[in-house]
């Protein structure tokens, strides 16, 4: 015990003590905000004006069920009910995350395992695209999606996200490259073809990395509302709904308790996922991405 205290004392310095204080303040502010949001979501909408900071009085558990039952968005094509909003969210986040991760893994596998000049070219291409910052081409992308008949369609969103560019290409490339070629040679001797070697041998080996990248992508897409608002304007997601609700004036959606209750519906699945997977997410992250 004494040794532990002495070691701790030797590691603490004015610099680290200041950091400790700043970090405690950081956590207190973040937890304070989240706790206040949860408590506010449990307040009766009209009672909020009388009691903005204190504990709910009375405790009111009807806000979330009310949102689940009555939430909707009015779009050009008509009213979009809450069920459809949630379905759009799942389709967008799971679909885009899976397509993006799978395509990246497949291209990285091809470049890593088939050592030809073209593989080297693709590898170089990914690096070049990452370094060169092309900005402000969103309008062109929208026009392109319109010309191809992909605008305002979820399938179009999936096609646009089927890209292999980005840091995770390098992560998968290194991951597949680290697997000894003896593994695939043994499978070949056993009569496996190229597709079987990729799907039944290499992809299971990379499953840990694949799941981590998938999770990171899923969280990103689940939380994103600006991209779907532009590319699939008539397919609102839950994140878009949380954005739109802040502009509503209709009671009780205009009140903070109901708006925060809606935010919690979007927040809870991701926080639950993070609590269960934070070791995988935080542990597997390395320079610019994920290590295998």
């Amino acid at each position, binding site marked *: 015990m004494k040794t532990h205290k002495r070691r*701790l004392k030797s590691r*603490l*310095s*004015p*610099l*680290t003590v200041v950091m*400790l204080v700043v*970090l405690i303040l950081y*956590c207190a502010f*973040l937890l*304070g905000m989240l706790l206040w949001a949860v408590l*506010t979501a449990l307040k009766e909408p009209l009672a909020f004006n009388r009691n903005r*900071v204190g504990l709910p009085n009375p405790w009111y558990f009807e806000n979330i069920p009310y949102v689940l039952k009555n939430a909707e968005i009015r779009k050009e094509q008509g009213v979009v009910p809450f069920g459809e909003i949630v379905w759009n969210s799942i389709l967008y986040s799971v679909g885009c995350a899976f397509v993006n991760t799978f*395509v990246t893994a*497949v291209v990285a596998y*091809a470049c890593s395992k*088939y050592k*030809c*000049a073209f593989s080297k070219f*693709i590898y170089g291409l990914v690096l070049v695209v990452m*370094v060169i*910052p092309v*900005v*402000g*081409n*969103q*309008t*062109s*992308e*929208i*026009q*392109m999606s*319109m010309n191809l008949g992909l605008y305002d369609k979820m399938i179009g969103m999936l096609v*646009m996200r*089927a*890209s292999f*560019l980005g840091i995770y290409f390098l992560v998968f490339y290194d991951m597949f490259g680290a697997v000894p070629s003896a593994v695939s040679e043994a499978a*070949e001797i056993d009569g496996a073809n*190229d*597709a079987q070697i990729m799907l039944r041998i290499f992809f299971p080996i990379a499953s840990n990395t694949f799941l981590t990248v998938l999770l990171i992508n899923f969280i990103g897409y*689940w*939380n994103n509302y*600006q991209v779907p608002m*532009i590319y699939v304007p008539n397919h609102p997601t839950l*994140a878009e709904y*949380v*954005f739109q609700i*802040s*502009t509503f004036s209709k009671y009780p959606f205009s009140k903070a308790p109901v*708006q*925060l209750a809606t*935010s919690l519906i979007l*927040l809870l699945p991701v926080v639950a996922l*993070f609590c269960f997977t*934070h070791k995988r997410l*935080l542990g597997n*992250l*390395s*320079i*610019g991405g994920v290590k295998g």
Partner: protein
Amino acid sequence: MKNLKSKSFKSAKSMWFFIAILAIPLLQFCIFYIGVNVNSFILAFRNITLDAETKKYVFSWTFDNFINWFGDENEFLQLTQTLLISLKSYAISLIIGVPLGLFFAYYIFKKLPGAMFFRFMLFMPSIIASIVLVSIFRYFTDYVVPEALNVFHIELSGALLSEKSTRYATVMFYNLFVSFGTTVLLYSNKMANISPEIIEAAQLDGVSPAREFFSIVLPQTFSTLSIFLVTGIAGIFTNEINNFSFFNYYWKPDTATLGFLMYFRTQKAKGDISQYPPLAALGLMMSAVAIPLTFLARWFLNKVGPSED
């Protein structure tokens, strides 16, 4: 083809498999990267109008999309205002956010009290949707912060996000607050790769934590730091500092950035392609500045950055 096959592929089947799995991703790349960027370039020089009679778009060539940003008084004012705020935001992130992120990462790397908990908490804002966190933050600053300040007899003249004098500072505070997740994680993971022998030798020599941080840890982490600094250059032109989440469709000249200007106009166009060419021209101009600036920053950091040795 024969030569390629014999060198890189075991059989013709292998080669066809390679072609088959790459065909669709490459087609996607050709359309949505090369095609989009070429189209963006062309779009910047086009004038698009809707013919009232035929209800079809009419295309012509023009330089006006570039000229208007400088010739039109309102457009020029908006461009310079947003550029200044973008530069100011980048500088604030660089001066406050980057050092704080490095210090936090050092704290976690040293496994000081609560390190793992702090790592979890610092990453938390990265997994929460910006619109959710912004909503909570907005209400929190509207209702809770004034009451908390009242305890210390400090009275605010209005809500922090409504008052012009406090709005930008509040928005930047939020942006710094949520910015530590990924950077701290990557810095601390990079620091974890530092050879323990080096740290032990320094400790035996009686090196203070501050000296250890500046003389050993920082140079060893510099390669990761420089990646963030170099890629961050593009952020000057793309970062919206959460304007849309904070203020919805309301334009706030004191917080709007170039990135938000682009998104705001694209959103307002609601799919009307005749409004796209000026934005494509602005994007082209921004890329023309961002690309050399990025390479310049890379060259500069390589030249002046500390050596890991």
